[in-house]
């Protein structure tokens, strides 16, 4: 039966499908002739004009043929459930749109020229991708759903077509306004797809109920019933969407814990979370505390110094749009306050655009950060370094007068002892291609800078460039020449001496971690974990494994014992090594693991993250587990 309906709907809309194919043939021809600009324009026309209008046309044709020949009487008298009839027709018509999408993706996939032009459009391959499915395709699907849903109400297809546009535009405006209001209230601005989904569901439900329950022969009654239900469901959607957004975890996975941006500080573990701000595992209370609530939080853009946290917080208003300020909060969660206001004309930071991250001095008394602007004439980024006391006094600034085009600034170290700032920058060629990441040192007093390393690895989502807790050394990976091996180097932050402790053709470093006293560094690379001790200049291999992905490891609070995750015959074990690197303890991990395991060594406790949404604490004495997040 479904097949018959499918064939019927396809047959009735075959012209739109053929038109889409014609569009795609034209796209192929344009791409093959290498007319990049025209291909881009034509693709835009296809995605932004043709697809939504085709979706509206297909949707509005929903019950046209049933009205046209009074065939609804015939159809309703057949032995088929009305809700199934609705669903079969919906799926059948949606499949036309789906096949157009699919052909488009296939053309794009097998036509490198087009793939290159439209590289930001991807086909959703798994469920979570569907929620982030490009708006190019979400909007046509919503438009189709609205027009199909209301096509049960009236027999004139063009009226349905235009009414759908009006309804869609009105709802889009309303929800955008409402989302802006939510953003101001809840610091969250990612709900368009949630509301889009809810709107589509509201129309589907109202349409199915009206179709099943109402008298099709009486337009007035039918319309009233539809209007009643659609308003009801939209109100429910509004409430559910608001709750979801207020909670911040509906569909967004925003409760997810991002272990790679964690900071272990004085026995506690801090971590950033994209949409909620900063959370902290407090060892004393054995609980996770929400420290800072902020929107669009870039997880590595906070810094801890003694008893203070500096972080950036986004805000938005009608005058300045989206902007960000620098805030300070105490590590006990008290005294959250704004330090740098970029939209306050009374401050020297007025209209400054903050770039990169910030750093607190080890004593928490001073903070340093960057602001920048692109010079439109020279096309070179002009960057200003600002440093000041965390009570707002002692504001200093220096304009970094780089002669070449640098971008992606990331502050790495700012030891109090020298007053020098170390940061990584990405050098771009005149054609804006990446040349290399440089590690540079800026003498803030002398106003000079020097390149310390020409080509360093700087993926800050991994801990592969780490300052020791004593601020004496910086561990990093460096390649001094493209044909040479990669080197794991310790940079003495006082003397700027470089010490190579390990070399490999490809370092494949997962992470490195310093002991609390700054005398030992453990690093995991490729399939092995090694420890280097500064005092005796010794490099020891602690473990070897059969697979090449990251494992969790960290020093315990005493700085002598090392905790390490090691697989054994398919099971995962936490193993604790003593000062002599002999195994002292082995505990089987009883929880399912998704991807890598992250681990933080504390005072006789270990904190572990097996999946993105939870955090477990293991007491090494009692071997008892506790879920703390």
């Amino acid at each position, binding site marked *: *039966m479904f*097949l*018959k309906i499918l064939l*019927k709907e396809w*047959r*009735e809309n075959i012209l739109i499908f053929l038109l889409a194919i014609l569009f795609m043939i034209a796209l192929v021809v344009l791409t093959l002739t290498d007319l990049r600009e025209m291909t881009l324009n034509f693709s835009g026309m296809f995605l932004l004009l043709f697809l939504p209008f085709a979706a509206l046309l297909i949707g509005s044709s929903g019950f046209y*043929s049933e009205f*046209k*020949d*009074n*065939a*609804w*009487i*015939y159809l*309703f*008298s*057949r*032995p*088929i*459930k*009305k809700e199934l009839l609705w669903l079969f027709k919906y799926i059948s018509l949606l499949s036309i749109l789906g096949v157009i999408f699919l052909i488009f993706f296939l053309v794009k996939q097998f036509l490198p020229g087009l793939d290159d032009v439209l590289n930001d459009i991807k086909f959703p391959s798994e469920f979570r991708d569907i929620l982030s499915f490009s708006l190019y395709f979400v909007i046509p699907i919503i438009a189709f759903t609205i027009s199909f849903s209301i096509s049960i109400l009236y027999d004139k297809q063009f009226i349905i077509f235009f009414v759908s546009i009006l309804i869609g535009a009105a709802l889009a405006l309303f929800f955008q306004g409402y989302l802006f209001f939510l953003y101001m209230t809840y610091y969250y601005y990612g709900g368009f797809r949630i509301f889009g989904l809810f709107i589509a569901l509201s129309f589907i439900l109202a349409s199915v109920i009206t179709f*099943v*329950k*109402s*008298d*099709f*022969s*009486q337009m*007035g009654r039918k319309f009233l019933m539809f209007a009643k239900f659609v308003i009801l469901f939209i109100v429910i959607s509004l409430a559910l969407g608001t709750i979801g957004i207020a909670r911040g975890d509906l569909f967004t996975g925003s409760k997810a814990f991002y272990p790679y941006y964690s900071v272990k500080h004085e026995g506690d573990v801090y971590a950033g979370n994209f949409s909620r701000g900063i959370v902290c595992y407090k060892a004393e209370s054995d609980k996770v505390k929400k420290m800072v609530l902020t929107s669009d939080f870039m997880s590595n853009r906070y810094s801890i110094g003694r008893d203070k946290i500096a972080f950036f917080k986004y805000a938005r208003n009608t005058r300045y749009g989206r902007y960000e300020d620098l805030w300070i909060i105490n590590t006990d969660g008290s005294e959250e306050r704004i330090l740098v206001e970029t939209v306050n004309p009374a401050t020297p930071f007025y209209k400054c655009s903050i770039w990169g991250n910030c750093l607190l001095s080890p004593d928490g008394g001073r903070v340093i950060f960057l602001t920048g602007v692109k010079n439109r004439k020279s096309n070179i980024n002009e960057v200003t370094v600002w440093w000041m006391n965390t009570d707002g006094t002692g504001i200093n600034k220096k304009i970094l007068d780089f002669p070449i085009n640098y971008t992606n600034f990331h502050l790495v170290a700012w030891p109090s002892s020298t007053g020098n700032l170390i940061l990584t920058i990405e050098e771009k060629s005149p054609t804006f291609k990446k040349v290399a990441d440089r590690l540079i040192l800026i003498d803030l007093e002398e106003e000079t800078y020097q390149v310390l390393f020409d080509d360093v690895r700087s993926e800050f989502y991994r801990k592969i460039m780490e300052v020791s807790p004593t601020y004496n050394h910086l561990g990093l990976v460096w390649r001094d020449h493209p044909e040479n091996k990669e080197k794991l180097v310790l940079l003495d932050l006082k003397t700027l001496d470089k010490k190579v402790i390990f070399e490999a053709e490809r370092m494949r470093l997962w992470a490195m971690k310093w002991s609390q006293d700054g005398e030992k560094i453990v690093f995991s690379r490729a399939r092995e974990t090694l420890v280097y001790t500064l005092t005796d200049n010794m490099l020891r291999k602690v473990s070897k494994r059969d697979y090449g992905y990251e494992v969790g490891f960290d020093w315990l609070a005493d700085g002598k014992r090392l905790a390490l995750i090691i697989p054994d015959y398919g099971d995962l074990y936490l193993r604790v090594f003593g000062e002599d690197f002999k195994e002292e303890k082995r505990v089987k991990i009883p929880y399912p693991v998704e991807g890598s395991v992250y681990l933080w060594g504390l005072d006789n406790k270990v904190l572990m993250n097996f999946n993105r949404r939870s955090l477990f604490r293991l007491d090494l004495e009692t071997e008892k587990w506790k879920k703390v997040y």
Partner: protein
Amino acid sequence: MNEILTIKYLSKSFGKKRVLENFNLIMEKGKVYGLLGINGEGKTTLIRMIMGVIPPDNGEIFFKNKKISFRDDAYKKEIGFIAEESIFYSWMSIKELLSFNASFYPKWNTRKANEYLEKFSLDPKTKIRHLSRGMKLKLGLIVTLASEPEFLILDDPTSGLDVPTRHDFLKEIIKELSESGTTILFSTHIVHEIEGIIDNLGILKFGNLILDEDFHELKNSVKRILLTSEESLEDKIKMEGIITQKINGSQCEMVVFPWTEEKKQVIENLKPTSMEIKPLNLEEIFISFAS
């Protein structure tokens, strides 16, 4: 009782217009039920409610003693329905329509469908929009017959048809079906054509059945009486069951239902000079009751 369809207190309005009001009906299995009524009396509305096409405002419908709701669909597998208008998808070919319907009915008989296509000289490749009204009726009938229904509902199917087609349809197909035990509800306003077919007769007026009788008994018990008397008959005839009455001085013509010996005695007591008792055909019965 061997009931196939029972309707209790069925009501339906369109806007302010009340079309059916507390409508009741019982149909027995294997009978042909003629439903008569002038246009706009609610015959089509009643049938559409039985078929689940439109919902009733109130009341209940039972098919084979099982209550059916507006959302039910299973019972429709056992009901064939031919509507007044040509309500197919006009772009479909005959073959496509048959194939479309075959997917709905588990008892679909393709062999029978092909036989009737041949019998009615219909080309399967012909588009429905190219069919005449009579051909569409034949196609509807083929769909219905191929689904092998237990119960057939015909909503004024022959209106607008030419005489030979109507004759074919009524005499050959409907008779054949009724003889094979299929229950038929035949709604029409062309009265005389169902006279030789129906077992029961219902007349719909003002949203309700004003007559619901076994047709053969009805024919025996409804009579036209023609009286002539020496005296004026004005205000003299007083008895129940007078359906229509025309008095012109000493002459009177009336239709009486039911005609009984007691009523005959009442008339004879008036000592008429002449009394003629005539039977009525279906058209006359309908006119008498519907007027």
